[in-house]
C-alpha cells in the first residue's frame, strides 16, 4: 500500500536532514579553532545528499525507494585563513596560526535550511498519518 511508504520516505529525509544539522553544529563548534599548520586546520564539513532511486541503492536501515540518504560528507575547499600571532603557543616558526575556514553566517543559514526541510517532512508524515487513521475509520461509517 503506497501511503505507508510515505512514513519510510519521510523517515529517510528526517534522518538525512538531522545528519546535515549535526554537521553544521560541528562546524559551528569548531569555527574558532586554530591549528599549528595548514594541514591540521579545521575545514568545514558539507553533506551531499543522494536520492534512493532503485532497490539496489537502498540498504537494510532505509529500504525505501524514493527516499534520500547522505551520500558523503566532504570538506569545504575554501582557503584556510592564516593569522600572524607570534604570542600564540602553537604558532609555527614564522609566528603564524591557521584558523578554520568556517563562516558562521553561512552555517546559520545552512542550519535554518535544514531545520525547515526537517519541518516539511514532519508535516508530510503527519498528514499521511491522519489520512491513514481516517482510512481505518472507514468501516465505522
Amino acid at each position, binding site marked *: 500500500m503506497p501511503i505507508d511508504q510515505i512514513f519510510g520516505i519521510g523517515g529517510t*529525509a528526517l534522518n538525512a536532514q538531522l545528519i546535515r544539522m549535526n554537521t553544521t553544529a560541528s562546524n559551528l563548534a569548531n569555527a574558532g579553532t586554530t591549528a599549528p599548520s595548514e594541514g591540521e586546520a579545521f575545514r568545514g564539513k558539507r553533506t551531499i545528499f543522494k536520492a534512493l532511486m532503485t532497490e539496489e541503492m537502498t540498504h537494510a536501515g532505509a529500504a525505501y525507494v*524514493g527516499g534520500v540518504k547522505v551520500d558523503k560528507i566532504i570538506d569545504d575547499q575554501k582557503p584556510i585563513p592564516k593569522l600572524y600571532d607570534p604570542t600564540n603557543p602553537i604558532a609555527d616558526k614564522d609566528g603564524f596560526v591557521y584558523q578554520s575556514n568556517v563562516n558562521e553566517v553561512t552555517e546559520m543559514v545552512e542550519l535554518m535550511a535544514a531545520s525547515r*526541510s526537517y519541518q*516539511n517532512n514532519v508535516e508530510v508524515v503527519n498528514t499521511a498519518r491522519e*489520512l491513514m487513521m481516517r*482510512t481505518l475509520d472507514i468501516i465505522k461509517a
Partner: protein
Amino acid sequence: MELLSTALGVHEKALRVRGERMELLARNIANGDTPHFKSRELDFKAVMTEVLPGETMASTHATHFAFADESGDDDGLRYRVPFNVSMDGNTVEMSVEQAKYGKAAGDYQATLSFLENRVGSIRKALRGD
C-alpha cells in the same frame, strides 16, 4: 458476491492511485535538497485509464494502430517543468510541492468520503432498517 465486489465502484481504485500520488509527492519533498534530483508528477488520467480498462478506443480491424495510451507500459510518471531552475540541477520547488501535497491530501479525503458513503449504504442495506 458480485454486489459487494463492485459496490465500491471506481473509488476503491481511485484511492489507491491517490495514495500513490501522495507517495510520489513525499518523494519529491524528501529529495528537496538532493543535487540533480528531478521532481516528478503523476498523470492521474493516464493511471486511471490503466486501472480501468475498457474505456479506450476499440480496434475493429487487424491493421488498426493501437491508441497511444494503450501501450500498457505507461506508469503515469512525468517530469515536472520547474518555474525556476536551481544551480544544483534540482527541480523540486518546495512551495509548489507543499501546495500539491495539501491538495493531494484533500483529494484523498474526498475519495475517502465517497467510500464512506458507499460503505454506509451497504451497511444500511444489510441491516434492513
